[in-house]
């Protein structure tokens, strides 16, 4: 992310917050205290919501910075889902749903799958939904439309997730009452940009961790990082990360400005970012050697988050095709 003076200060503040109050190791179990601080103390769920609707009036670029920093810690709390939901609702005529999301008394989840609507009754089951178990509000895509559903009206079953830092649940709707709150496509574009920002933040953190290890770990009487085979591998990962960061930055700006090419660059950003993240997290295990293969080391947490993010909400291949079709049409 290219920082202006404002975003640099925001980033620095959040970097300190996450390192001190929400480090990676604290993400293996729910921590209501973290969520409370993120919402009531820092007001992050309403960061990109206009002030007149109770938010902080910052843009999607600032939200992307927050999510990059949250990604560094593999934040477990439903900040991403809830903050994106707040942006979507603030832009709809369902602003009355915002207050509990902004004050942290409720979190949201995006339910994307095969759901049908009959009148205002939604029916369908979605097998993997991020953050659903804790959510009070579900934003459900039905074809091109987006509906808000009270989570109490759904059957939600927690799942054991491959990624232990990101809760998953199965959601079943059986004639649940829904309220139309906007278009699915735009909401998914915003969600993709958010996931992309989180991914490049996490990828940067695990690459930094890896380089730090290569700098101190010695074999054959010299630091591992002095071996050209490893230096070049780090350089290639850096190129991939910087390239992905550029696309994420561009997409975040497009989201902030509602640019006409957002539908093209949003899926592209998630594809590019998760490609970089999966490659970097995979190589991080390799470059750490045996210690990187252990349960106690953090490398596998990044690896599992990377693959989970890549596979949820459409994989990179699908997203690139979507971007291509949208970008070259006409």
């Amino acid at each position, binding site marked *: 992310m*290219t920082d202006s003076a404002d975003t640099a200060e925001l980033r620095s503040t959040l970097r300190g917050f996450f390192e001190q109050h929400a480090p990676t190791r604290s993400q293996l179990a729910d921590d209501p205290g973290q969520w409370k601080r993120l919402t009531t103390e820092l007001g992050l769920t309403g960061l990109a919501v206009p002030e007149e609707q109770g938010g902080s009036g910052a843009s999607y670029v600032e939200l992307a910075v927050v999510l990059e920093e949250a990604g560094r810690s593999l934040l477990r709390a439903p900040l991403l889902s809830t903050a994106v939901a707040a942006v979507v609702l603030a832009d709809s005529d369902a602003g009355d749903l915002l207050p509990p999301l902004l004050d942290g008394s409720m979190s949201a989840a995006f339910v994307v799958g095969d759901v049908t609507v009959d009148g205002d009754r939604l029916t369908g089951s979605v097998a993997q939904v991020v953050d659903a178990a804790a959510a009070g509000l579900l934003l459900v895509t039905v074809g091109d439309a987006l509906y808000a559903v009270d989570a109490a009206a759904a059957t939600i079953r927690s799942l054991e997730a491959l990624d232990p830092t990101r809760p998953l649940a199965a959601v079943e709707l059986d004639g649940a009452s829904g309220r139309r709150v906007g278009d699915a496509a735009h909401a998914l574009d915003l969600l993709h940009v958010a996931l992309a920002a989180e991914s490049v933040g996490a990828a940067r953190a695990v690459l930094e961790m890896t*380089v730090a290890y290569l*700098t101190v770990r010695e074999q054959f009487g010299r630091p591992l990082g002095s071996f050209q085979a490893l*230096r*070049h591998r*780090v350089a290639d990962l850096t190129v991939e990360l910087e390239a992905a960061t*550029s696309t994420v930055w561009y997409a975040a700006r497009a989201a902030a400005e509602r640019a006409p090419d957002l539908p093209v*660059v949003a899926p592209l950003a998630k594809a590019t970012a998760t490609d970089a993240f999966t490659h970097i997290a995979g190589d991080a295990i390799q470059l750490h050697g045996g210690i990187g293969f252990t349960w106690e080391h953090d490398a596998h947490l990044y690896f599992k988050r990377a693959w989970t993010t890549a596979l949820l909400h459409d994989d990179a291949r699908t997203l*690139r095709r979507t971007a291509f079709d949208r970008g070259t049409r006409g």
Partner: protein
Amino acid sequence: MSLADFRGEVQAWLRERLDGKFAAVVGTGGPGREHEHVEERKAWEQELARGGWVGLGWPRDAGGRGASIEEQVVFYEEYARAGGPGRINHLGEQLAGPTIAAFGTQEQKDRFLPGILQGTDIWCQGYSEPGAGSDLAAVRTTAVMREDGWHIDGQKVWTSLTQYADWCFVLARSDAGSERHRGLSYLLVPMRQPGVEVRPIVQLTGTSEFNEVFFDDAVTAADNVVGEPGAGWRVAMGTLAFERGVSTLGQQVGFAHDLDQVIAAAISSGAVEHDAVKDQIVEAWAGLQTLRHSALRTLNNDASSSTGVEANVSKLLWANWHQRLGELAMSVQGAAATVVDGDGFSPLQTMFLASRAGTIYGGSNEVQRNIIAERFWGLPKDRA
């Protein structure tokens, strides 16, 4: 003037000439096609100069137009879109001129900048040597000061478009017995003299962008040293820093044209029906979008937000991307790509072959990776 007005002015100026008097040079002179229409492209350079398009981004006090980055981007994009030919003096405009403007004396600016701005003096770059490629500080060409000026002896290699050049900026060892970065001088040397011999290198494209240059008691005036004698390394590194991101956006318009040709070939051969080929085309397209986002990010950076390795990242990105596109260009044609028809290589064959140079020149991929490892991450040097 608004940016849209500026774009309109650029388009109109280019269209009038490239649809008219200079129609012959459209699309010529690119990689693998440097030999095409040389005299017309020299005339074109002077036509550009008359239009005020040479030195567009140079500061006004150096005789340039002082155009904003956005305006420069517009110019390069429209130039590429209009099929403007390979610039025969891009080393003069992009490297020699800015270096002289930044490091030269007033006399040197008065002497050399007008020839570049008028498109009359063509420049080349004398850096690499047979023993000093990626390791530029191993330069062995010597410069000795005598009564009538500097006398230069040695060999340069991989010099671009030297066969057409009037002047060369040469990095030479002026302190006998000095080593590495110390004792080098940055000299401006006239090419049209008995002591200079240029031998074109026939490349795997069958054409000659690059040359060998032999200096055998070549002479240049005592005043033609930029910076202090013996302090040429700093000037040489300054030259490399002028390779800014602006022209890469124009380069990307050319890349988009290459990609369009590859897609057309894939449709024509039927290869596009295969899912795997479609994926490769989509990946190439996606890679090109990311190249653009990277260039825009670099242009918007200031000193505080710079990573310091944007140029190295960008070089690796585009050179690798273009090389993969060259390979895709061949594979979508299948066996038909193995035949050379008529006068020579097809545009896609030429692109495929010429793309092998991008990962070597201007700092090879391996050198770029070392720079990223050291400058961005502070990893220790490999001492093996």
